[in-house]
């Protein structure tokens, strides 16, 4: 089935690519920059939504993988003058290794223990940039020079080129992830997420499956970090604080956990909402301490509201709307894509599993 649907996904990707190309040419160069940013986040968030949504492992430290990818790219461009594409691939490999290591450690951990470990990873890793200033340049980080190819002409806006490159990488990543999710591996992820014991009895190697999920999400984060390096032209620890890791998880859940389109909605939210609210706030002549904090408060409030109004995230909400027109067959995939809610049984009506079985038998 994967083989048959692959062309469709490629088609969809191509369509999206054309749309982005059209927008990037039509809209002003700042929008190009925002497209590039969205593409960067989509790449990272898609990886995380697979890790957390499908394999059921939470990570509050994927910003660290972005940092690894970004520094790898910066060092390769800086010292070895590699072409970006080569550096991109190399960064993916490096982060894959890092993801493997973390995955092995993570494979035994659950829920908040995994969250705590990954959170600390996200806090600790940037500190290394200070500990080894010679290599990583402390807080000043490493400068990355990235220019549009000559054949596009001298006047070609760099931001548009950044938007194109990032979008292509993001789309390729999404297509590959989509195939992965609906391949045997993806099914194993869901099986492990829903019931490890049952999965193991079905002959799924639980540990390997979970580690693989970490590797995949790490690679995505690494690619995103690599893109971020060329989009911001600087790789510095200040860009990879825990705030970033939390923003990634937030985007994944808000967008709709386990859903790739959801990754897009989440990324659009974290890129556009702050800019938009800031402009509104500042344009109303509020004192700067008030005006600058309104976007923060608003962002927090939005997170809470979306979670209470759309338990399945934005994608869940959209699919629910879609179902009003296209019949119930969409329901199944929300059920499939959403993580199993049984991890935290609600304190009130919490049927022990055997009761549930009898109830639904």
């Amino acid at each position: 089935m994967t083989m048959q649907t692959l062309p469709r996904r490629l088609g969809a990707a191509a369509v999206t690519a054309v749309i982005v190309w059209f927008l990037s040419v039509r809209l002003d160069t700042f929008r190009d920059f925002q497209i590039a940013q969205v593409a960067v986040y989509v790449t990272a968030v898609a990886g995380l939504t697979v890790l957390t949504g499908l394999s059921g492992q939470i990570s509050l430290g994927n910003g660290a993988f972005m940092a690894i990818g970004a520094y790898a790219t910066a060092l390769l461009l800086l010292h070895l003058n590699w072409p970006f594409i080569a550096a991109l691939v190399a960064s993916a490999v490096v982060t894959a290794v890092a993801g493997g290591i973390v995955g092995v450690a993570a494979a035994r951990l659950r829920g908040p223990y995994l969250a705590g470990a990954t959170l600390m990873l996200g806090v600790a890793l940037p500190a290394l940039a200070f500990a080894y200033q010679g290599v990583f340049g402390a807080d000043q980080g490493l400068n990355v020079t990235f220019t549009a190819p000559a054949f596009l002409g001298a006047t070609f806006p760099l931001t548009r080129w950044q938007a194109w490159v990032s979008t292509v990488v993001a789309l390729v990543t999404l297509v590959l992830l989509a195939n992965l999710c609906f391949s045997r591996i993806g099914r194993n992820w869901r099986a492990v997420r829903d019931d490890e014991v049952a999965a193991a009895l079905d002959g799924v190697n639980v540990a390997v499956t979970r580690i693989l999920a970490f590797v995949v999400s790490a690679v995505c984060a690494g690619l995103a970090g690599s893109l971020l390096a060329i989009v911001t032209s600087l790789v510095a620890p200040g860009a990879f604080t825990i705030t970033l890791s939390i923003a990634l998880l937030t985007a994944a859940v808000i967008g709709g956990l386990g859903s790739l389109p959801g990754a897009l909605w989440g990324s659009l939210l974290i890129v556009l909402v702050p800019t938009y609210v800031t402009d509104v706030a500042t344009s109303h002549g509020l004192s700067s301490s008030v005006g600058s904090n309104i976007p923060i408060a608003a962002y927090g409030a939005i997170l809470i509201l979306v979670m209470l109004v759309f338990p399945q995230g934005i994608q869940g909400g959209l699919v629910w709307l879609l179902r009003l027109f296209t019949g119930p067959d969409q329901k199944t995939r929300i059920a499939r894509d959403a993580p199993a809610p049984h991890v935290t049984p609600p304190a009130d009506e919490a049927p022990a599993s055997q009761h549930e079985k009898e109830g639904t038998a």
Partner: protein
Amino acid sequence: MSSGTAPALAVEELVAGYGGVIALDRVSISAGTAAITAVLGANGAGKTTLLRAVSGMIRPRRGRILLDGTDQAGRSPEQMVRAGVAHVPEGQGVIPELTVEENLRVGMMSWPRGRSRADRAAALDEAFGRFPPLAERRRKLAAALSGGERQMLVIARALLARPHVLLLDEPSLGLAPRVMAQVMDLVVRLSREHGITIILVEQNARSALAIADHGVVLNLGRVVAAADAATLAADVALRHHYLGF
């Protein structure tokens, strides 16, 4: 409490389920005061759902749950236990992280605030008097108890709520035959000596009917038979068809 005529517990036209699934379809049952009513049926027949609906663990969609003649449908478990219905769920009934005594104290949480320490202490002693094996282990974690002792503990805790109606879900599950016999004796004593109305859900229809006054057979959420225990036990066709013995 109730005049012998009105049933202690009557369920009328009860409909309940989970999500899209209907697990109980217009079920009606009436249990006489101080009688043992066995609820029988294959796995998935809706037995446990019936108990969960009566104890308020799930909210019925339709129908009435009459306790001494007053409708209690839609009440929360916290309210039902105060109304005199104690539910001993199947399986993990004990809280292993708590000591035996603490498990029993939990049984008195439904008591009105007013009751004195002395009353509670007395109730505890009574429980330990009834179940000496528990008394020996009162300060041990419940995790340390054997299967039979756990079943005792759970029933003892339920009794501390001073119920009029006791809902027992598979009390004999996974117990050695000898222990199982003890549990069944206990159930009988509870009804005969303490006048507690008992709803007994059992896979093991034979032993259940042996001690029950009355029996109800569920299949796929519907009542397919309701009669004296003896009559049911004698009905060969029914036994083969629904009870598999």
